[in-house]
């Protein structure tokens, strides 16, 4: 059996055991959506403007690099405000109308200093369909139910005072197997932890190298909650753990990147490193088997997307399509501007937002990739060239794209 065939057969096996929750839900549950794939099946518009395909616009109470998540009929989003950025917000909005359903605020209990481009609301919240975990750069973590009732509150820097990064923390948590998994890796007290979603108490806390790390864990959901796993990434590599215990069952122990996050597709994990590494996720062999490594495939700040044996990466405004089986570049397409947010994919369309708020819609099935439209998000009829800074990654749900700036959340859809 050729290597590619083996990859395909194992991919099918993993597809079968995909989480029941993932199969059942069309929710966008965490940073980059279910399992960190950054993609969903949806019928989205090819363009939008102030008076076209914007279903609603809602004002936000503060800044945020965090992306929205969507659970049921609610869009959940975090923000931070105040001259010190120490006011923490988490809001639920009606996905149909954009109307605020509930809004909770907290006072940061950890370090609030960060790079001016970042802010306290940088990590994207996460949900298991019952709970919402809102996490912030200050390492404050609030767990609420979907009605906005506080389930518990933790201040991880309050608990562990050396755990902070003066540039800001960005790693987004996941809720997997009944556990909120958070990466708090920094030059002080550096750790990963698994927190019981019901009680807010540590199930485990794993010491990590004292080095900064901004990438996010990836939820690997099994058929049942007990089969759920989580992939975590740091400067010393990537590992797969059991979320309830933190036990490591697989590891890639070579250098890994600390900004863009790894992406899992089938039984292969694609790890930003010096370029990109594709490694086989075979838990019968606890040490990673590297399938290929390429310095010609580079993810900048946005994380890679894998779809149908294609890898999509953005680095320095270049969108690159590469072969997922070999790492060979297939085509490159020049976009414009700087990109902090990870793009999303719906069918043949890739939606990438640069920091100036321009949303590029790209047909990735065109032979060399084709830009279908450039959409200034946040423009007005009176001032069509205006726009708002967009740093957070969008969400896809209910045939709509949910995108946030520092002051607004938009629902972009063909129909309201």
């Amino acid at each position, binding site marked *: 059996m050729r290597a590619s065939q083996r990859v395909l057969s194992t991919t099918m096996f993993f597809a079968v055991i995909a989480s029941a929750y993932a199969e059942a839900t069309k929710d966008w549950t965490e940073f980059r959506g279910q399992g960190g794939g950054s993609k969903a099946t949806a019928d989205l518009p090819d363009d939008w403007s102030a008076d076209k395909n914007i279903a609603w616009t809602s004002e936000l109470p503060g800044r945020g690099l965090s992306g929205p998540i969507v659970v049921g009929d609610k869009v959940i989003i975090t923000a931070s405000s105040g001259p010190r950025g120490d006011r923490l917000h988490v809001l639920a909005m009606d996905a149909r109308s954009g109307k605020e359903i509930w809004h909770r605020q907290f006072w940061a209990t950890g370090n609030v200093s960060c790079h001016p481009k970042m802010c306290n609301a940088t990590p994207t919240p996460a949900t298991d369909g019952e709970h919402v975990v809102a996490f912030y750069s200050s390492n*404050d973590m609030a767990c609420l139910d979907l009605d906005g009732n506080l389930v518990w509150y933790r201040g991880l820097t309050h608990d562990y005072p050396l755990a902070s990064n003066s540039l800001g923390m960005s790693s987004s948590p996941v809720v997997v197997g009944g556990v909120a998994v958070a990466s708090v890796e920094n*030059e002080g007290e550096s750790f990963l932890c698994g927190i019981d979603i019901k009680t807010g*108490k540590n199930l485990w806390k794993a010491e990590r190298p004292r080095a900064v790390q901004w990438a996010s864990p990836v939820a690997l959901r099994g058929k049942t909650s007990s089969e759920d796993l989580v992939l975590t990434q740091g400067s010393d590599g990537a590992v797969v753990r059991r979320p309830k215990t933190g036990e490591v069952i697989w590891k890639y122990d070579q250098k890994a990147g600390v900004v863009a996050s790894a992406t899992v597709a089938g039984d292969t994990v694609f790890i930003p490193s010096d370029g990109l590494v594709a490694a086989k996720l075979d838990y019968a062999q606890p040490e990673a088997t590297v399938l290929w490594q390429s310095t010609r495939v580079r993810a900048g700040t946005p994380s890679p997307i894998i779809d149908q044996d294609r890898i999509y990466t953005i680095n320095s405004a270049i969108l690159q399509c590469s072969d997922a089986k070999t790492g060979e570049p297939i085509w490159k397409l020049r976009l414009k501007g700087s990109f902090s947010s990870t793009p999303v994919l719906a069918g043949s369309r890739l939606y990438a937002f640069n920091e100036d708020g321009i949303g590029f819609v790209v047909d990735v099935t065109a032979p060399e990739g084709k830009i279908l439209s450039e959409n200034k998000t946040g423009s007005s009829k009176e001032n069509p060239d205006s726009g708002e800074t967009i740093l957070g990654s969008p969400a896809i749900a209910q045939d709509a794209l949910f995108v946030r700036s520092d002051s607004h959340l938009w629902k972009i859809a063909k129909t309201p």
Partner: protein
Amino acid sequence: MSCLAPRVWRKPCWLVSAAWVMFGQLNVTCAEEGVALEHQIASLLSVEKEGKGNEEATAAWKRIAAVDAYSIPKILAAIDQAKPISANYIRSAVDAIAGRAKGENSPLPTAELETFLRTISHSPHARRFAYELLVAVDPSAKDRWVSTFLLDPSPELRRDSVEYWQGLGEKELSANGKDKAIELFEKAFSGAVDEDQVTALAKKLEDLGRPVDVPTHFGYIQNWKVIGPFDNTGEKGYDTVYPPEEKIELTAKYPGKGKEVSWVDLTTTHQLAKVDLQKGIEKAKGVIGYGYAIVTMPEARDAQLRISTPNGWKIWLNGNYIFGKAEYHSGEFFDQTVVDVRLNKGDNAVLVKCCQNEQTEPWTNVWRYQVRVCDSSGTAILASNRPKVQTIFEKED
């Protein structure tokens, strides 16, 4: 009045209680409910580190979040004695109560909120929250209150007031020239504690021919004794105990990195009192320097030390280690780290260890720190031994 009864009959409860009070009756039911509310609040106040007490707090939170908006001032008052995590349980419960009242078009107890706001002894966070609740339902409250917050213990309330007085200054400047405007700008400056407001007002006043002393306004320590370099090759010096950590002898000499070292005077004239060890000691990498200063207080008091540095650091007060971070070149921000301390009456010895590593990127060519002494609002606490420092300050590099 605190009612933990189901909301369907909660409003009748306070109406009935009012009637009972009119007739001199004791409202036993609501008194019991008040006790129950206090019991629930106690659960929120009992939350400890690492989630201890979470389960009890979760149950209590739901009961508190279900009470009538008239209980908000009493619940807010609990923040006075709350640790930071408990304060967030309480705050978010009030969010839920106020949000529900808004959705139901129910009134908030505005008179009680104004009383709460007026009571300076309440937590600054809680008073700011009370103010926001008040203004949300009564926008005219802002006009009544904002001018009064200039020296408020809450930095957020101050900020609004500084903006108000600065705005008056701008109007005066446009309408009538600078004389009265300077007074208004100086008034605004007197209350400012945020870096952006302070620096903007300082520039405004300087442009109008009335320069101000920003380091003194912030309470930065400007006069130091410094010593170094000691070795920090491989960042190993961070945990190495060099002589200044054991005993301060200002006349002593020690073996340093490549040479004998001794204490020297260093007075910073930087506009934000950055203590540049590249000037005070030498330009070097893989080194450690110490700064030592005496802060004399007329009375013992609570205070904060606010430290900013792009280098690894540790700080001691009166020989006791307070805090530190082995973090290198991850930015340098205003009030980067805030630590609560107790200052003694008389002399207080502040010792800073500032560690430079061996990174070679251009942005790593900085070896410096700032320390200021202030209260929890950010208002300077000035030492009685604070010497006059020249008032022509160096601008930022």
